[in-house]
């Protein structure tokens, strides 16, 4: 009985002694390492693109200085305010209300999007909380489902071009004729269903002639840089050449140069009145499968 009692006392004392020794050792290590032992994971060693801030090149440089970011609970400062003490450019953005961080409602809560202690090479930004509408390039239509890396290569987000051509190669069907102002014909909903102004009036011959298929004039497949008028106008090329030659016109390959409205009018430039026939042509499947029977707006 007495032996059991002594044994219990010994265990109890041993436990308490061990706990006290542990506290002493941990306290000593904490003092020597600046509480680094409480870190849940390594800080990022990614160097700031714009150079060091206050002599700090990366968060990893602050590994032994927890208080650099963590304000005590009883302090008026917060972790976010300590972020902005170094990152003054972001503080300026938040205050101006115009640039990226200025558009974020809770921009003062830095760690909602920016997390640390996830590894030396971990991302500092959580994009699951990121709304692209905060940028100057809101994502609409099909862009909403695109992987970030499709546009932001090598995980570089700042300075990404807004030009469509920076991501989308110009299709062969364009043949370099439509320029790079894609938005004038296309929406982000779909490449097909492009709407564009056909400069040459398609109904120049009257109602019965409107809404012809693209291939009626553009007889070479996938080439809209060339056309022919002879598919509709049953001129004889030889006779037409002779007729024009009599008027001193030798070069007749480009009919619309002289007949911009498609009318018989002799040499003159197109006027605004001529171009009033220009109408929006709905072109399905990148223009070349357009069917005359489907009419406008398809």
């Amino acid at each position, binding site marked *: 009985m007495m032996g059991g009692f002594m*044994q*219990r006392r010994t*265990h109890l004392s*041993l*436990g*308490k*002694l*061990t*706990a006290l020794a*542990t*506290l002493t050792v*941990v306290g000593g290590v904490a003092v020597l390492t600046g*509480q*680094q*032992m*409480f*870190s*849940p*994971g*390594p800080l990022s060693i990614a160097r700031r693109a714009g150079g060091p801030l206050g002599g700090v090149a990366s968060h990893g440089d602050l590994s032994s200085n*927890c208080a650099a970011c*963590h*304000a*005590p*609970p009883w302090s008026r400062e*917060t*972790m*976010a305010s300590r972020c902005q003490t170094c990152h003054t450019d972001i503080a300026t953005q938040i205050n101006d209300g115009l640039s990226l961080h200025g558009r974020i409602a809770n921009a003062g809560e830095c760690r909602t999007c920016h997390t640390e202690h996830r590894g030396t090479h971990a991302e500092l930004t959580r994009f699951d909380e990121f709304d692209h509408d905060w940028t100057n390039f809101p994502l609409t239509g099909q862009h909403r489902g695109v992987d970030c890396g499709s546009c932001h290569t090598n995980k570089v987000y700042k300075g990404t071009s807004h030009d469509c051509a920076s991501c989308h190669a110009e299709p062969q069907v364009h043949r370099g004729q439509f320029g790079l102002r894609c938005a004038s014909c296309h929406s982000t909903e779909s490449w097909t269903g492009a709407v564009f102004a056909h400069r040459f009036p398609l109904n120049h011959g009257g109602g019965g002639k409107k809404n012809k298929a693209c291939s009626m004039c553009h007889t070479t497949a996938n080439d809209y840089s060339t056309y022919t008028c002879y598919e509709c106008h049953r001129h004889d090329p030889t006779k037409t050449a002779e007729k024009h030659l009599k008027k001193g016109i030798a070069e007749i390959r480009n009919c619309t140069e002289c007949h911009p409205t498609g009318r018989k009018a002799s040499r003159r430039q197109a006027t605004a009145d001529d171009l009033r026939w220009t109408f929006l042509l709905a072109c399905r499947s990148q223009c070349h499968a357009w069917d005359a029977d489907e009419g406008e707006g398809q």
Partner: protein
Amino acid sequence: MTRPAVELTIALTAVLVLTGVYVALAQDGIPRPGGAVGLTLGIVGFALMLAAQTLYTRRKQTRRFAFGPTYVWLQMHVVVGIVGPYLVLLHSAGRFHGLAGVTALLTIVLVLSGFVGRYLYTETPRTLEGDESRPTQAVAVAATRRLLALWRLFHIPLAAVLFTLAFLHIIGALYYGTFSK
């Protein structure tokens, strides 16, 4: 005679069930230790470890208000002492960094030590009856009891270190992760 290892069966079943739940929760990635799931795992796991330690110790030290036989409390100690640390390991999400990492690794060591202790405990006869009257058997029993006493000198301080570190980890997490705005 060795009792059926019902406590191990219960603990293994609980671990399998919890693994299934964890896998279902980890569909979108391993839960972070500081996230809702991770914190829940840590809190419940630590509470179970604390219960495994304190309840069994108090029962052993209680004479007047003993509730249930000691071996049942030992079985509880084994079950909860396996399930609790398992939850704590899930809480760690495989990150063994700093004080939290040391605590998680010590948890593994403590559980392994517990398995050794349980083996020694079941090998030691509870009474002075039977074969112990034979001189050779008596020597073997004495040797086993000495081993068990030696094991306690390892297991109990280890538990004290672990719980001290765990408390410090909790205080650190509350300070830096919760109260630090």
